[in-house]
């Protein structure tokens, strides 16, 4: 970074420490300087981290209400006929992002070393998972024995979300099961655990009243559970 050039305004800009006229000059420069754009993105992340260092009392509850109220009032003027439910295509758009960024944390890690086609399959699977989670018509059941939820859409398509599940031991895998009321367990897919949140699109449909459970099995999975479930949910 050469001193005395407009490049070295990047840190000050990231900290909002430029006067208005200086900021304008820098922004004009930014439009032409790839290097500064990259540097700025990175330094802005770091500057933003300073926000987390502040120790302050929580905001009053009225602030949340005020913001949401004002937002609702504003948008009504713009889009008066907006449908209430999430349109499907919108969820798909969000799903693409969500699948890349957050939802995939658990499942994703397992696919990184696989081929591109495997990765694509996982991405599509995650996208569907997000749709099921976002569907207002999906029914949800909390896990007992673990932290998480099972969501089942009206057609029986289901997704299992487990938080803070340790990675399966070497040579082992987690396997999900759908157990229809009065029936035998149906294998519903294997997953590796680890990471922050595991999102598993179940490979079997979940009828009303069925139990979704997971066991630890040998790598590759089995056709019938051989161990006691580590968690389950009655849907």
């Amino acid at each position, binding site marked *: *970074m050469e*001193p005395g050039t407009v490049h*070295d*305004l990047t*840190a*000050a800009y990231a*900290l*909002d*420490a*430029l*006067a208005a006229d*200086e900021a304008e000059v820098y922004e004009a420069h930014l439009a032409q300087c790839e290097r500064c754009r990259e540097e700025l*993105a*990175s*330094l*802005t*992340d*770091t*500057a*933003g*981290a*300073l*926000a*987390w*260092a*502040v*120790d*302050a*009392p*929580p*905001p*009053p509850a009225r*602030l*949340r209400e*005020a*913001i949401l109220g*004002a*937002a*609702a009032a*504003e*948008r009504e003027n713009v*889009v008066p006929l907006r449908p209430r439910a*999430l*349109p499907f295509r*919108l969820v798909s758009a*969000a799903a693409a*992002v*969500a699948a890349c*960024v*957050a*939802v995939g944390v658990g499942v994703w890690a397992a696919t990184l070393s696989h081929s591109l086609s495997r990765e694509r399959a996982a991405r599509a699977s995650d996208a569907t998972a*997000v749709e099921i989670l*976002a569907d207002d018509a999906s029914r*949800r059941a*909390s896990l007992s024995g673990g*932290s998480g*939820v099972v969501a089942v859409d009206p057609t029986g398509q289901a997704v299992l*979300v487990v938080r803070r599940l340790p990675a399966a031991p070497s040579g082992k895998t987690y396997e999900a099961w759908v157990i229809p009321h009065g029936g035998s367990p149906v294998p519903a897919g294997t997953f590796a655990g680890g990471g*922050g*949140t595991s999102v598993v699109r179940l490979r079997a449909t979940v009828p009303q009243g069925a139990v979704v459970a997971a066991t630890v099995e040998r790598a590759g999975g089995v056709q019938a559970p051989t161990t006691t479930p580590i968690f389950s949910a009655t849907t």
Partner: protein
Amino acid sequence: MSRPLAHFSDEALVLLAARSEQSALAELYDRYGRTAYGLALRVLRDEALAEDAVQEAFLSVWRTASRFVPERGKASTWILTLVHRRAVDAVRREERRRADSLELAPEQGGGAVDEDAWLRLQRERVQEALRQLPDAQREALELAYYGGFSQSELAERLGQPLGTIKSRMFAGLTRMRELLGEPGMEMSWSPGPSTT
């Protein structure tokens, strides 16, 4: 409180907000409202002004969500940058430059019992990184970011050439970046255990 979107990434929520999904804005507020308010309060030192700044920033998220480009940066950074800008604009407009800014804030009020452990962890992590900076760099970062001073004002206040102030801010930020590591998942939202 039911949080049906608790499993969504920040970026997905911004996309949903762009399509007028109010619950997405609510979820973003539930994730970042507290930090946003703390930041605005630190800069503005006035609860009413801080509330205004946070409200304007979140409405700005609501209005401009469709222009957010995930490839260019994290949604959390975007939101906190909007909050910070509003706060800095307001403090400069107010002209009531805090005479006490140079002593920089005995940490106040926090550590509330209801505070999320995750927030506390983030705070300690960034505070620790700040502590490791040379004093002059930390002072420049804190006065600029929390005090809302421009670089020229800082140069005058600290009796240093402008070039020195620029160097300190740049060196301080790049050192912070190293100390915090690439701020990947650990600075992003991680759903708590009671969100369903």
